[in-house]
């Protein structure tokens, strides 16, 4: 197994980009007439993508303390000039996360959503390709290109199913993202102008040598780039586009979108660690701003959760809370806190994706309740109901005085209720699921950075206390908001026809939640992985060496050209 993995490994790095691209091309050829075949290809490609991502994660993690870093040169040009793809622990984690959500969303879509419009499957695979590429690339301009691939596909997915609400929200979403892309390009251009390179590792190395006269331009470029990333990550004043757009999207698209804000967070994390991590070449001016902005996002999102009227809007607020927590946590720049944040990122993204699917199922239940009249039931010719004759004694009665005990709940109602419960526990950060462990890891790291109880250590800063207080308060508000909507939508026994759920949809909802349970059970290895990833991020030297040291494959004349 291991030797086989080693042999195939260098090329597997490109697979998360090539596989979805090829699948999308095949599905375009299949077109609308062969929708079942398209769906099959889509599911197969997503599952294969997940398998590849897991293989990469396993391989990267085997590299011991520092972790293996795989560099792949797609065009075989030497490093600072050509395109490079890099997998390290962080990238592998994000790949697994994105592809897991991909499998979830595509399974859910095959039940009914893929019939709501044209070209769902190719767009879906292209979006996965954009996501994977953004996580893999080691190059600022390619990051832009993959962002655009991802966004272009997401515009199509957002509009999938059409309708006034989607088009209206879609227009705002497209406009915001086009403007943000312009800002992104300005930042990239300024950094290129100052450093003369686009390769992230190369740039990190050259930042120290930037002359003092160019420092202003450099700082401005970094700030502009950060604005573009933080717009994608939906930090507070830049994140108003998120809730309406995600609420309008079809359920499987919204579930996949749950990871898109995390791409912004990933970009901020990657760039700030590379640029600021290397022995203080530049003062991380922005870290205070990140903490402040993250805290405000967190607070605003928590109140938006309470204020939300619709479940879909509340889910949008949950995304904002998750983003805010992450941005603030990363702003502190402590390795142990970053580790907690990575764990939180994984579990909260999974739960949010499940929540978006549940939103749609909940609304479907609601629609069944309101739109369709209950089918008339023709009982046998009894002139009165049986309960009227003999009322059961000593039994709990509901509002309409019928026995609660012994009434069979439909399986779907039980499933939806339990799934929503699990979702709410993870998002609010209550035990026993992974959300609690993630928050615990972050909070303990914020108050005790090195995990060693030491009386000599300086007390936690005010901002650390503020962060802790806000995270706990947001957890309380989230509990209230989620419990309220849960009671209204999922947990009340009402006389309603049983909502129709397909098995695939149940599997799709259960998949990310099972992953959350697995994260809670296997918290020890998961946190160890997150800690290693965070440590590697905070010491970027091996990453820079690995990228800059990558050698193009030598082609021996005549013989090796086909290899």
């Amino acid at each position: 197994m291991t030797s086989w993995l080693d042999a195939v490994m260098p090329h597997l790095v490109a697979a998360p980009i090539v596989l979805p691209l090829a699948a999308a091309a095949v599905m375009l050829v299949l077109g609308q007439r062969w929708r079942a075949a398209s769906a099959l290809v889509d599911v197969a490609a997503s599952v294969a993508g997940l398998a590849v991502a897991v293989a990469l994660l396993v391989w990267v993690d085997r590299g011991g303390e520092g972790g293996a870093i795989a560099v792949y040169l797609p065009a075989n040009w030497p490093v600072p000039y050509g395109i490079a793809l890099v997998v390290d622990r962080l990238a592998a984690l994000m790949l697994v996360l994105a592809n897991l959500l991909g499998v979830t969303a595509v399974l859910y879509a095959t039940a009914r959503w893929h019939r709501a419009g044209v070209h769902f499957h190719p767009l879906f695979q292209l979006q996965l390709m954009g996501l994977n590429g953004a996580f893999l690339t080691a190059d600022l301009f390619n990051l832009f290109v993959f962002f655009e691939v991802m966004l272009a596909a997401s515009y199509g997915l957002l509009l999938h199913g059409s309708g006034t609400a989607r088009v209206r929200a879609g227009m705002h979403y497209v406009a915001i993202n086009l403007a943000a892309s312009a800002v992104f390009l300005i930042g990239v251009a300024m950094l290129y102008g100052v450093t003369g390179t686009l390769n992230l590792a190369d740039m990190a190395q050259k930042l120290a040598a930037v002359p003092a006269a160019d420092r202003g331009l450099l700082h401005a470029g970094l700030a502009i780039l950060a604005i573009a990333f933080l717009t994608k990550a939906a930090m507070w004043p830049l994140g108003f586009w998120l809730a309406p757009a995600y609420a309008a999207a079809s359920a499987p698209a919204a579930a996949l979108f749950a990871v898109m804000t995390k791409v912004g967070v990933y970009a901020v994390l990657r760039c700030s660690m590379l640029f600021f991590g290397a022995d203080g070449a530049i003062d991380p001016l922005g870290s205070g701003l990140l903490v402040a902005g993250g805290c405000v996002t967190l607070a605003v999102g928590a109140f938006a959760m309470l204020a939300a009227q619709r479940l879909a809007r509340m889910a949008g607020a949950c995304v904002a809370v998750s983003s805010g927590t992450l941005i603030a946590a990363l702003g502190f720049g402590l390795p142990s806190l970053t580790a907690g944040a990575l764990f939180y990122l994984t579990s909260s993204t999974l739960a949010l994706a499940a929540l978006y699917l549940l939103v749609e199922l909940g609304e479907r239940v609601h629609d069944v309740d309101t739109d369709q009249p209950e089918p008339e039931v023709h009982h046998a010719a009894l002139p009165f109901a049986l309960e009227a004759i003999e009322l059961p004694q000593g039994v709990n009665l509901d509002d309409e005085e019928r026995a609660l005990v012994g009434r069979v709940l439909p399986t779907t109602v039980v499933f939806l209720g339990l799934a929503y419960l699990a979702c709410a526990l993870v998002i609010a950060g209550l035990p026993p699921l992974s959300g609690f462990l993630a928050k615990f890891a972050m909070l303990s790291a914020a108050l005790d950075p090195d995990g060693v109880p030491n009386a000599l250590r300086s007390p936690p800063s005010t901002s650390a206390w503020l962060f802790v207080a806000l995270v706990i308060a947001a957890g309380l508000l989230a509990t209230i908001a989620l419990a309220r909507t849960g009671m209204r939508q999922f947990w009340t026994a009402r006389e309603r026809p049983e909502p129709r759920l397909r098995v695939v949809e149940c599997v799709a909802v259960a998949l990310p939640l099972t992953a959350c349970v697995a994260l809670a059970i296997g918290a020890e290895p998961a946190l160890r992985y997150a800690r290693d990833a965070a440590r590697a991020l905070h010491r970027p030297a091996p990453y820079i060496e690995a990228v800059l040291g990558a050698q193009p494959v030598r082609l021996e004349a005549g013989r090796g050209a086909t290899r």
Partner: protein
Amino acid sequence: MEIVFSLAVGVLGGCGVWLLLRPRTFQLIMGLALLSHAVNLFIFSMGSLSIDAEPIVVVGIAADLAHYTDPMPQALVLTAIVINFAMTALFLVVLLAARGLTGTDHVDGVEPRAGDGDARA
């Protein structure tokens, strides 16, 4: 040349941002287009503005930026133009769909009420 170039970038960018803040979808798309032109010119200027210089190395001339223009920004601009072009086309479709579905060209899909401050458009 630098002055003319930066004026062009500034005017395009300023017009773009102003139009971007207007309430009509057509103004919005024009604003985005102008903004992307400004950005493209800006990227171009990041190489080094040189007249009559080749981007590809010629035998016999020393290979440094004093004799050549930087080819990298040109490649970037080319990519950015293609992406912007595609995005503008896509946005145009969304714009037309919104016009058809909502019956108005206001960006929010509803005409502002007469009493509102932003009614002039």
